[in-house]
C-alpha cells in the first residue's frame, strides 16, 4: 500500500499545524488549505487527492493515537475535519481550558442533549442545572457566560435559545459518546457516523442525520425506512 508508506513533507506538516490550531475546519477550507500548503512547500498537488494526503498524515499520527477525522454537520451535511485524540477519555481535551465546575456543567448539558428527543437542550433547562452542580453551585448569570464560551470555543452551538453539540464536539468525542451513552446514542444508518439530532424510524428504531434523510428521500413520494421498509413517519426536512 503505497499511501501508507508515503513520507511526510513540509506541506503535510503545515496542513496538520493549521488544522490543529483551527480546532475544526470546513471541507472547502480544507481543500483550499491543501492547495496552499502544496504550493508553499512546492509539493506535487492534485486537487482530488486530499483524502490520500490526509491518509499519509494519519499513518504517521496513528502511533501517537491521534487522527484527522471527517465528520458531517447536522445542519447542512457539509464535511468538516478535526484532529482527534483517540487515547483521551471524554472531556480530557477540554480539561486544561476550563475549571472543574465548568466541566461538570458541560457534562450535564451533554447528558440533556443526548437524552433529548431532538438533540437539543433549552437554555432554561441548562440554567436550572447550574445550581445543582456538585462541585460548586453556579449562578444563572455565570452559567450563561460559560455557555457563551462553550459556543465560542465550538463545543456547543446555539439556535433560538436551544443548545446542541457542535460538529467539532461530535467529531472529537464520538468514541466517548458511543461508549458512554450506548443505549441512547445512534449511528446514522446512511453514513454510519454518530448522530445527535436524528430522525428515528418508529418501527425499527434506526436513526438518520437530517441531511442524510434529505438526500436519501429526494424525489421519493412515499419515503420508506431503508431497514424495515415501513412508511417513514417523520416529515422529511
Amino acid at each position, binding site marked *: 500500500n503505497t499511501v501508507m508508506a508515503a513520507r511526510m513533507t513540509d506541506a503535510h506538516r503545515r496542513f496538520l499545524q493549521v488544522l490543529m*490550531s483551527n480546532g475544526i475546519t470546513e471541507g472547502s477550507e480544507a481543500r483550499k488549505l491543501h492547495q496552499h500548503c502544496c504550493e508553499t512547500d512546492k509539493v506535487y498537488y492534485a486537487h482530488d487527492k486530499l483524502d490520500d494526503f490526509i491518509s499519509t498524515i494519519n499513518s504517521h499520527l496513528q502511533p501517537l493515537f491521534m487522527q484527522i477525522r471527517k465528520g458531517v454537520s447536522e445542519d447542512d451535511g457539509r464535511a468538516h475535519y478535526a484532529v482527534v485524540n483517540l487515547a483521551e477519555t471524554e472531556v480530557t481535551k477540554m480539561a486544561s481550558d476550563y475549571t472543574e465546575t465548568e466541566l461538570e456543567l458541560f457534562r450535564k448539558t451533554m447528558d440533556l442533549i443526548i437524552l433529548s428527543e431532538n438533540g437539543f437542550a433549552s437554555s432554561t433547562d441548562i440554567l436550572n442545572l447550574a445550581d445543582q452542580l456538585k462541585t460548586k453551585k453556579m449562578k444563572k448569570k455565570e452559567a450563561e457566560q460559560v455557555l457563551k464560551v462553550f459556543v465560542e470555543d465550538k463545543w456547543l452551538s446555539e439556535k433560538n435559545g436551544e443548545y446542541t453539540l457542535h460538529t467539532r464536539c461530535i467529531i472529537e468525542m464520538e468514541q466517548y459518546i458511543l461508549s458512554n451513552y450506548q443505549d441512547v446514542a445512534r449511528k446514522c444508518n446512511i453514513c454510519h457516523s454518530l448522530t445527535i439530532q436524528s430522525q428515528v424510524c418508529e418501527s425499527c428504531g434506526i436513526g438518520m442525520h437530517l441531511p442524510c434523510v434529505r438526500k436519501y428521500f429526494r424525489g421519493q413520494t412515499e419515503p420508506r425506512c431503508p431497514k424495515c421498509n415501513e412508511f417513514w413517519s417523520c416529515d422529511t426536512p
Partner: protein
Amino acid sequence: QVSELVQFLLVKDQKKIPIKRADMLKNIIREYKDAYSEIVNKAGRTLQEVFGLQLVEIDTKRHIYILINNLPRAEGQYLCRDKEKEKMGLLLVILSFIFMKGNSVKDSALWEFLHLLRVYPGKQHSVFGDVRKLVTEEFVRQKYLETTPIPLTDPPEFKYQWGPRAEKETSKKDVLNFVAKIQGKDPTFWASQYSETRA
C-alpha cells in the same frame, strides 16, 4: 511513553506555556527517569517529523523548553487564528521598535511609542483588551519579551528586550525587512542595524 510526552508537549504549547523538565518527569516520565533523555529525544524527533515543530531548550540551567514552528515561513494568511494574528502583529511592531532602538528599551519609551499607535496601558483596547497585561505579562510569560529591572531607579523602571522565543521564531533580518517595507526604504538605510543582521 513517547506518544504521551508528545501529546503533553502539544497541549502545553497550545497555550505557549514553556515546559519545565520537572513537569515532564512528574506527569509523563515518572518511573522511567533513567530513560528520560532517550524519551525526550524521541519525542523531539517525532514532533519534528510529524508536526514540523522543534523542541528547544531555552534555559539550560533550569531546563525549560518551548516548541517552535520549524516550517519555512509562509505568507501570513492561513497561519494563525484571527485573535492570534492581531496579537502577533502588535508583537512584531514591539520587537521591531526594540531592535531599531539598539535591542533594549525602557518601559516608558515603549509605552510612549505605543501611544503613537493609540495603544494605552490604562485603557481597554477594542482588539487587545488589557494591553498592559498583554505586554508585561502574557508576552513575557510566553518568552517573546524579556523584562529586567533597571538598577538604582526609584520608582523602579524596567527595560525590555527580545525574549528567547522571539530569538528563535523570528530573526533580526526579518524584522529589519519588515521595517524597511513599511517605511519604503532599503534595509541598508539603517547601517548599524543592517550590519547586525549580517552577523
